[in-house]
């Protein structure tokens, strides 16, 4: 981030299974028990802290066979709590989850409910969904942004009014890091849109000329 208005966001992929085997012990192949979850979360946080600028992290569960409630609490809930409440993570880090299979969903939903948290989850079919105890108006607003991908800052007020959506709900979604607001222009982005933009290689002519300028990086330990 700079005074000139340049803004660069990094994408950062975290393969939870790979972290599990390298960080905790190669013996462990399931995301179970609280100490294991704590170790994996701290490894994710540590990787995110190493990124110098703002970042969006895709936490990938696709190769995790068993996820219990204690581990979901440590990995998913505490990671999101750190973002929402200003814990270990910086204020310019965003997290999405991907690869959640049907048997992961129940523990994740349970811990989100318990802590009143929202999680942006990449859907198998593309796009994203917002998991957690989301009130209907916030869900509608989030879904509307997800549908269009981004809303330019100068048009935001009118865009909300046309749809009967409330600014207070938008603020809550931004505060919960379920939506991204460009720090200078006030544009609102769906996290899935950001992830898609960042997946495009820099310099690719098909990349839309839209800040933030992506700088995609993959790291799977």
């Amino acid at each position, binding site marked *: 981030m700079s005074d000139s208005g340049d803004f660069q966001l990094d994408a950062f992929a975290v393969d939870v299974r790979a972290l599990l085997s390298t960080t905790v*012990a190669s*013996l*462990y*192949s*399931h995301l*179970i*028990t*609280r*100490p*294991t979850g704590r170790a994996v979360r701290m490894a994710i946080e540590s990787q995110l802290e190493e990124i110098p600028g703002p970042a969006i992290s895709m936490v990938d569960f696709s190769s995790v*066979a*068993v*996820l*219990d*409630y*204690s581990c979901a*609490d*440590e990995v998913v*809930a*505490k990671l999101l709590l750190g973002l929402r409440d200003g814990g270990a993570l910086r204020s310019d880090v965003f997290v999405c989850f991907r690869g959640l299979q*049907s*048997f992961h969903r*129940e*523990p994740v939903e*349970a*811990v989100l409910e*318990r*802590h009143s948290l929202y999680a942006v989850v990449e859907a198998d079919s593309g796009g994203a969904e917002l998991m957690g105890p989301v009130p209907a108006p916030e869900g509608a607003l989030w879904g509307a942004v997800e549908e269009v991908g981004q809303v330019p800052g100068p048009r935001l007020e009118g865009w909300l009014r046309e749809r009967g959506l409330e600014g207070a709900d938008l603020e809550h979604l931004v505060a919960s890091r379920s939506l991204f607001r460009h720090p200078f222009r006030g544009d609102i982005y769906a996290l899935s849109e950001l992830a898609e933009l960042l997946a495009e290689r820099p310099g690719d002519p098909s990349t839309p000329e839209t800040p933030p300028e992506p700088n995609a990086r993959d790291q799977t330990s």
Partner: protein
Amino acid sequence: MKVLELPSSLDYRGIEELMARAVSAEPDKLLLDGRRTRFVDPAGMIGLLGVGRFLRNRGAERVRLQMDPAAEVAGYLARMGFYRASEGILEFDTPPERARGRSSDVLLEITSIAENQDVHALVEHLQERAGSILSKTLHYPPSAVVQFSVILSEVCQNILEHAGAPGWVAAQTYQWSRRLGRQVLVIAVGDLGRGFRGSLESEHAGRFGARWSDSTALEAAFIHGLTRFPDQGRGQGIQQIRKQVRRWGGVIAVRSGSARIADTSEWEEFPPLEEGLADFPGAWITILLPEADPEGGK
């Protein structure tokens, strides 16, 4: 040598009788006489280990176990790893040889839970072993193996996080011809730790005042999800276990100190809350999961 007779059916109900006898026994040289025992389930086996350890902790010089070597139950105990698990706790004559090649019918042998990696090893084992038993014997869907592993993981973490002492877990299926006409999976987890009352006391006893007891501690944890940790994320495990057990039409009972609390069903009517039981240390959890009803109900 004083004799404590084992019940003929050393199961999740019969173990109560043995615990009561153990609590009132003078620690001495003791013989646990199982010569008339004809049936044993995981709750009975783990409870028997607990009784042996309890008597030793109270100063019993020797605790000897005698089973009828000709009875099937002795061989069954060997297949479930009972004699191996009871080393250093119980003395016995040469145990029956572990029947070779028959362990495939055992879902989960008696397994000691003392540290985090034991839970990982247990879940690894279940992922390999439980699938066919859950699907072929209990007719649960393939996804049940993950939910089953999660239940076992959470219930064993209960030992590590709250007991402050090692424990045991075991599971096996049985044909309940008379009571239910179906197979039932019996899961038992037990420890001789501080129990629910001891675990919650420092954090929650004050607000209960004179009402604080084993039963109020069990209600606080089992019904309301309280733990001794201030962290809001704690206490979910047992709630989620209850939810899953209900979905499968099962029963869960937790015995701690002198009380037991349970989620019951029409086919196994544990009282929802029992008080005034023999004051036996630790926490003893029994989960009963019935075979899926072939007609679609539970």
